């Protein structure tokens, strides 16, 4: 009985983790010239359709690893495309020499570090990780 209770608690915890709603946000460094962006503007930057922020300054997107939970959520919310669809999209761009997918960095800490040091970069992380060194440009 005691074991069953333990299992139930563990199960509830796992379930809570599984369904916990991660709130991904698009962010830039605090020194970035970028202000609030629309979903389409962010999607255009991450799909390589534009290389600039609306004010004309250079915009360089950076990606989290394929395995990250934020990556899937971010792209689903901003572009409406799944991982496989994005891979098809980038295959078309890469093999026709038209462009390359955003550079991948190992994780949220690395994204944060890079955004703080380079105002041209734009990334996405969980809302809970945002502090004064970053600016939220879109909550998709």
């Amino acid at each position, binding site marked *: 009985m005691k074991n069953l209770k333990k299992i139930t608690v563990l199960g509830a915890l796992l379930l809570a983790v599984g369904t916990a709603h991660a709130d991904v946000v698009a962010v830039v460094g605090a020194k970035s010239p970028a202000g609030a962006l629309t979903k389409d503007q962010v999607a255009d930057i991450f799909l390589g*359709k534009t*290389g*600039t922020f609306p004010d004309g300054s250079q915009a360089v997107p950076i990606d989290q690893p*394929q395995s990250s939970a934020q990556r899937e959520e971010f792209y689903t919310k901003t572009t*409406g*495309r*799944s*991982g*496989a*669809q*994005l*891979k*098809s*999209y980038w*295959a*078309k761009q*890469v*093999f*026709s*020499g*038209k462009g*390359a*997918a955003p550079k*991948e960095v190992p994780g949220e800490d690395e994204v944060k570090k890079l955004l703080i040091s380079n105002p041209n970069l734009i990334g996405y992380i969980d809302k809970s990780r945002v502090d004064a060194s970053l600016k939220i440009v879109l909550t998709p």
Partner: protein
Amino acid sequence: MKKLTFAMALAGLVSGPAMAAIELAPDLSVSGFGTIGAVHSNNNQADYAPSVLYPTGAGRTSSTSYGPDTKFGVQLEWKPTSRLSFVTQALSKQYANNSYSPQIEWAYGKFAVTSELDVRVGRIRPAIYMLSDYLDVNYANPWVRAPSEFYSSLSVSHMDGIDLMWRPKLGPVSLLVQPYAGHAKAILPQSTGSIPIDGILGINLSGSMGDFTLRGGYLQSKATLDTPGSTASLASAFAVGCRAGDQAACGAITTLIPNQAKLTFSSLGASYDNSKYFASGEIGKRNGAFDALTSWYVSGGTRIGKWTPYATYGSSKNNGPTQFTAGTFAGIPAFGLPSTNALGTSVLVAYGMDQHTVSLGVRYDLATNLALKTQWDHVTTVPKSGQAGTGAGLFRNSTTAFSAGANNVDLISVSLDFVF
């Protein structure tokens, strides 16, 4: 099977779990794509192949063939500065000479004149069709292979030349204006020769707004049939008639053996993709020395999780003359000897004739770099008003019985596509 070893061995190298573009140095990267695919035909009288440049296919040579779809490509990109880049891509697939030896499809230097204008010089794939750029990258497309009736209209995969890519934005519309110029050569199967295509001048125009893309293209060129064996014997056979006083035979030498003959291709296409549903269609018209081909397709499908079922209808119709008779060609007198007319007719019917295909298939995304597809094609060939020899459609190596009349052929294909 032995010929496949190269492609498969290379494919084996990349089937590891970590498939992503490999960065060799900060500004140098290598990426690749490929397909391992098998096609099975229920007809042993002719070979099905995606274009007339394939030496064999599925059907007569062997009922199951890896030739039509299996391929492997590797691309190297070097970007020494933010405005200058070099791209080279080698592709291994079943070529006309029956070998899988890799050929260079792309090898160009690209310079960004402005953020909206690129110029590319070297070996490039001319933007003849909507999917020209990545026609061999099956992973990027929903189907096992691009609709072959339309995509075999002009069998030129690459040319040596120059193109400009100008991408202005017009409000919500992203435009692409892409003129190109160069020369190409289509190698014909079984070492019969080649078709040099010189003086290529073309333009590709497209506009995208949201999920919708519209494109149009036009290309003009000069084509020559360079088949030392058959051209010479054909010319000498007509010359015999010419010397005997048959003016039709004299005219046939220049009319039926294209030498710098004008070859044009115009096309229109549209596509819609809202991530859940997609549909596309293209139509093209090829006009050569004595053929007038109209080809088109429509396709659509839906994405349901990892599954992407789709349906396609493709059609190719050659409205060029199929009989060398009085008055068929301008400038050729009405009276030809029966032997001249029979020979002329045999040349005309050797060109691809009418074929239609209904395809149903499904793609399953095994992983983000790996797709498994299966497709059923029902191919119908239609002879020209009962004329024997015109019933083979776009099939290769057909028997006399196959090309004598109409045919219905069923194909089942299975393929595994990957990118890295």
